[in-house]
């Protein structure tokens, strides 16, 4: 019987091979053994493939609820929204194709222009103030003193209060007639203010309210990042004679750069999408001074029933958000690369760290 090269036996069914097995002894034994293992491996592989198929069925059973709901309520609406933005739709009767008319109308609509300006002003004020405020508070809170846990909690707690509750609370506090704020001002001998009823102040007051509730988020994020500043780095810099100001400028702040970029992105996205607080406090007024983009979209779609027009405005917002995301991604990548390069440089405090430990002993 000619010896079959081992690879060929793989094609033989395992049952047939085993039947011949007792006859093959002596010279062919080694080859047979090899063939046998191959056959067994083959069977194993087939079992594995069956197992994989079974596994893949189980996996699909596991993920299908999540996939159906998540993709069904995101990917589908995104496409639908795009189609809507080329149509006139009143949410009830079938829609009519109007091409680019909605976008052209947006460009000419002074109310949309005002909404864009209001949103940008709100963002330009809120994002830097919340970041700087958050950083300063985090630096002050980043020390082991008594009660510091309580301080952190008190500063963060407004973040979990809903925008509705914030709005209702501040419309009361800032009520021109019955509010505590004006009562306090008049007791101090200062002139009372219109706050949310004054077109010149309303948007600023909204920024103030959001600073009250949103700064805590920046504080928490910065505090977590400060924990990651290596202690050895700080001690080494201090040993090299760095004062408090140097330490902050050359050690702490550079380490926080990537997280700051993240926070700028996050806070910008949040403030471009502000809605709840505006709805509860001013409903876009007085005189349209607090109409922000999302309020405009909501008004068009669900109050004036021009859903196609609203969808077009939503697309403009989404593209803007996307651009912010892309720009920030580039900036973040650059900040991280710079940070990485800085850490690798010889002679920087990380290289000096062992000396610190030695000196301290």
């Amino acid at each position, binding site marked *: 019987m000619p010896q079959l090269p081992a690879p060929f036996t793989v094609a033989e069914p395992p049952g047939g091979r085993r039947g011949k097995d007792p006859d093959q002894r002596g010279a062919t034994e080694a080859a047979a053994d090899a063939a046998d293992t191959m056959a067994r491996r083959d069977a194993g592989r087939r079992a594995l493939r069956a197992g994989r198929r079974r596994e893949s069925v189980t996996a699909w059973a596991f993920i299908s609820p999540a996939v159906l709901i*998540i993709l069904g309520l995101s990917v589908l609406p995104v496409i639908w929204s795009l189609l809507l933005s080329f149509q006139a739709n009143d949410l009830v009767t079938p829609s009519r194709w109007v091409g680019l008319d909605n976008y052209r109308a947006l460009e000419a609509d002074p109310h949309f222009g005002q909404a864009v300006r209001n949103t940008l002003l709100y963002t330009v004020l809120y994002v830097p103030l919340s970041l700087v405020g958050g950083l300063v508070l985090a630096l002050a809170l980043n020390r082991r003193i008594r009660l510091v846990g309580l301080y952190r909690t008190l500063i963060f707690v407004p973040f979990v209060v809903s925008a509705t509750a914030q709005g209702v609370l501040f419309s009361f506090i800032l009520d021109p007639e019955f509010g505590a704020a004006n009562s306090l001002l008049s007791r101090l001998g200062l002139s009372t203010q219109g706050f949310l009823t004054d077109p010149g102040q309303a948007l600023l007051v909204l920024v103030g309210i959001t600073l009250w509730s949103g700064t805590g988020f920046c504080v928490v994020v910065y505090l977590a990042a400060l924990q990651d500043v290596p202690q050895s780095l700080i001690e080494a810099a201090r040993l090299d004679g760095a004062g408090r100001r140097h330490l902050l400028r050359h050690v702490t702040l550079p380490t926080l750069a990537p997280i700051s970029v993240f926070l700028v992105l996050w806070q910008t996205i949040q403030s471009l999408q502000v809605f709840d607080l505006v709805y509860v406090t001013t409903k876009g007024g007085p005189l349209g001074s607090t109409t922000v983009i999302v309020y405009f979209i*909501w008004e068009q779609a669900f109050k004036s029933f021009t859903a196609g027009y609203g969808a077009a405005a939503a697309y403009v917002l989404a593209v803007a958000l996307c651009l912010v995301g892309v720009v920030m991604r580039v900036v973040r990548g650059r900040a991280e690369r710079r940070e990485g390069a800085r850490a690798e440089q010889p002679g920087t405090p990380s290289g000096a760290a062992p000396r610190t430990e030695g000196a301290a002993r």
Partner: protein
Amino acid sequence: MTLTSSTPRAGAPRETTSVAASLAPRRRRTLPFSGWHLLLAPLALLFALPLVWLLLSSVMSNAEINRFPPALWPSGIDLGGYKYVLGNAMFPRWFLNSLIVSAVAVTSNLLFGALGGYAFARMRFGGSRALLVLMLATMAIPFQLTMIPTFLMMKRLGLIDTLGALIVPSLVTPFAVFLLRQFFLSLPRELEEAAWLDGCSRLRVLFTIVLPLSRPALSTVAVLTFLTTWNDLTWPLIALNHDTQYTLQLGLTTFQGQHHTRWSAVMAGNVITVLPVLLAFLGAQKSFIRSLTSTGLKG
């Protein structure tokens, strides 16, 4: 702290300096109280003040609140506002509606998030990689872009003006799936492999071995889901018309519009709206902050 370390530096040999530097913080800490309190205590109070005022005004009598200039401190505890709010048939109803929606959302996010997250973490199936990326990408889609079509979909399903319209879109979020997947990946495989060899099904492995080990991630998903569902206003505002279906947030703002002269009642309603979230936060503060700082950032 650095102030003390730099003073003995002039002319002193290097070793003395470093010893002084390493001792300085310890010596400083024995002082009765740090100067930082002078900055931090007033700031913390400033942040707490609006909420303190919320609580105080909710127990003022209506006469006291409507006086001019209004009182800044209640003369006594007057529960009239709470009685008015709880006697108002709608408020308990709104509370119940919010509770139902949040409870369903938390439960289903835990269930579907765990199932999906486990499949993505441990099972091999065609297209899993692409699907995961697609799911992650949906996290970046702003709600404003999807809200109009979602409204039209819910309308076709006949769910508008029912709690179902609130529940269906919040059943599972990509965040829950992704967060749990990341956590499952961090668990050692050996425990699960031993269970498979003993013939346990995937489902049993997930529920008896993996989930009991995943408490921190599960509590993070639960707390964040509760917070976002309970606090949401935009979607209930769009999806609900009739006030028997309102959630607490939507009810509160309507109530304020209708009763803006009964401020103590409005503030009592506001306390009731804020309290569950406040309690959830204080109860799970650690896991809450961890979730914000670790998962939110790296996404």
